[in-house]
């Protein structure tokens, strides 16, 4: 990606763009949850309990936030081997999160709450589905950084890409916590 260094280096333009993008993504989920609130206030709302496996996915994504932070620290300390291990672990935990969410979906399906069932269930599939897509986007970003870390030709000690990825990773984590609390309270 072609970038020009900022002329007055306060904050890296990529980080800045990321913060704006996160605001944008937040608006998207605010729209989803507002639609949920509006719909819930109307008749025919079916309340049900969220699959318990979502608590496991919460633990996984929280752990992955920790590992990516540690990985960033190792990178800055030039412990490249440890950094690679932690980065891999983060991606695996992220994938584990997505798998747990998927298992949650199948459990809902088995409880007779399919996608085209009650609107309350449809919302869960769509909102959490969009969230999983954002987590997978983060995993793709990690994979790119990972590929660069194993490249023998390029040696880069620029922490910006990893910092950007870490910030985004914490963001999807926080977004999940928000969704979990929201969906638990506004059932």
């Amino acid at each position: 990606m072609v970038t020009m260094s900022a002329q007055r280096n306060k904050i890296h333009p990529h980080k800045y763009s990321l913060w704006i993008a996160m605001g944008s993504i937040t608006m998207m989920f605010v729209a989803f949850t507002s639609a949920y609130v509006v719909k819930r206030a109307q008749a025919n709302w079916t309340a049900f309990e969220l699959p318990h496996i979502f608590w496991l996915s919460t633990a996984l994504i929280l752990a992955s936030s920790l590992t990516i932070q540690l990985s960033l620290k190792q990178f800055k300390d030039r412990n490249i081997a440890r950094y690679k291990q932690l980065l891999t672990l983060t991606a695996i935990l992220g994938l584990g999160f997505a798998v747990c969410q998927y298992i949650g979906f199948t459990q809902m399906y088995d409880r007779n709450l399919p996608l085209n069932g009650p609107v309350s269930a449809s919302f869960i599939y769509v909102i959490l589905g969009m969230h999983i897509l954002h987590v997978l986007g983060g995993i793709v970003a990690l994979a790119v950084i990972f590929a660069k870390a194993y490249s023998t030709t390029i040696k880069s000690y620029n922490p910006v890409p990893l910092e950007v990825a870490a910030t985004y990773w914490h963001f999807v984590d926080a977004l999940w916590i928000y969704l979990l609390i929201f969906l638990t309270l506004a059932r």
Partner: protein
Amino acid sequence: MSNEATLHSQHEGVHGAMTHDHHDGHGHDHHHEDSFISKYIFSLDHKMIAKQYLLTGIIWAIIGALFSVLFRLQLGYPDATFPWLESILGHWAKGGRISPEAYYALVTMHGTILVFFVLTAGLTGTFSNFLIPLQVGARDMASPFMNMLSYWFFFLASMVMMSSLFVQTGPASGGWTSYPPLSALGDASIGSKIGMDLWLISMALFIVSSLLGSLNYISTILNMRTKGMSMTKMPLSIWSFFFTAVLGVLSFPVLLSGAILLLFDRHAGTSFYLSDLFVAGKALPNEGGSAILYQHLFWFLGHPEVYIIILPAMGMVSEILAVNSRKPIFGYLAMVGSMFAIVILAFLVWAHHMFVTGLNPFLGSVFVLLTLLIAVPSAIKVFNWLTTIWKGNIRFTPAALFSIGFVSTFISGGLTGIWLGNSSIDIHLHDTYFVIAHFHIVMGVSAFFGMFAGIYHWFPKMFGRYMNNTIAYIHFYVTLVGAYLIFWPMHYEGMAGMPRRYYDYSTWESFKQFAELNHFISSVVIIVFFAQLLFVVNYFYSMYKGRKVTELNPWGATTLEWSTPINPGHGNWPGEIPEVHRWPYDYSKDGVDFIPQTTPVGAHESKH
């Protein structure tokens, strides 16, 4: 990637191989390393990307305007037949008369194309890209790559929307707002089939393009300003692009959410928007949905969208009026403050589009109050434009004329907004021609005037040539007079209760009286359409054959873009980026015609 090397080398103050002969038309002296593809197609240069946006926008504008001519033929001459229509539209115009299905498709596509593809992408994409780096003093955008992606997502969106015009069942035809259930049920109408899917895909791509662009605009304005360019020294055009981008970043994702839910309703059997429906005598299984929910999500974008369209025009007009009346802009901070107020209010008024949906009257009155509040910042802006040109030494260039025209249409279209913002009056006027007249004048015509003003004013910077003035004056007067002749009578039709979107008014006893008026409006539409083609001819002719620009600063303007070479290369300034010492509106100060932003403040200078 040669650009990267060039740009980075310039940061060290070393001049890379620069391209000084952009758009020379002669093409001698090819001492640069850009290939045709990297220079004209997958360009990373914000100036070339701006021109790509403009070209795509012009093509869309011609198509969108042509559609309005076609459906105006039906409205103005409901009994006549035009055999040539059948030869171009085939079974959509059997016997030379546009079919009802084609009519709705044309109306829907006219709205979609003009609102999104021309006045959002074409206007903001062009001028934000072109002017932000040039006026804040940056080599390029914060991320030129993302900027390029933004254009190509727009191009993809355009291709998908274009292809929907050619599918057998026709493009989307449920109105540019795509309300469910018409948009959610494939069997509801012929235009709800594949055309609607293509519409949704195209809009999703469009939203991605818009977000990528806006991210860049914000990031560039906040981070990449040259030395001395504090926020309060920025030209008002930059402020307007900034606020536009903020609006886009916060409101487009909401439309995306609404569209995603709609896609699920269409294809996955969910019932977000659907309930208690019968299609062709059969009851649908969908239960528990609410069509009004979509309207909330849509108008949460839809209302900020009209400011996304009008704010860049406001900013450019402020700039052009100050330059051409040789006076500082009146009330710079009030201008910035009023734009900020508009941005805040933009998010708080969406339900005024929904007064007749069964909205709680108490809630309605809150939205009335907030809507009417928008009149305050709008009036401040109008006052400041008028006081800027007041007793000015006005140069009536085509750009200045279009800017003055903008102020005129913004006033006359804005005043009717106060009518419609009142829920009690809106109940009578809702979905009538009064609404058509209101938003076409205040948003459509005004934004187009701002866009034309911008093109005429910055054409010399874009192509190193001037546009032809005589054609430009004809273009302006025909468009201004024509716009009023087209839309003014629609107010009367609307007050008489004539609903919008009807196919044929001659069969209605109440609206028969307007047959002659409709006839007149349609005739003017055709004339104005040809006047726009004059502009297109002027644009392309001047690009290659126009009078060459020989001085760096042809308008005597203070802003940074005129300190670049006549045909700036990628990186904009061959040497160091100039430093800024003053605000951009030092015109006729201390007896000096204008003082560029790059001139240091003198010891005995008066304060502005």
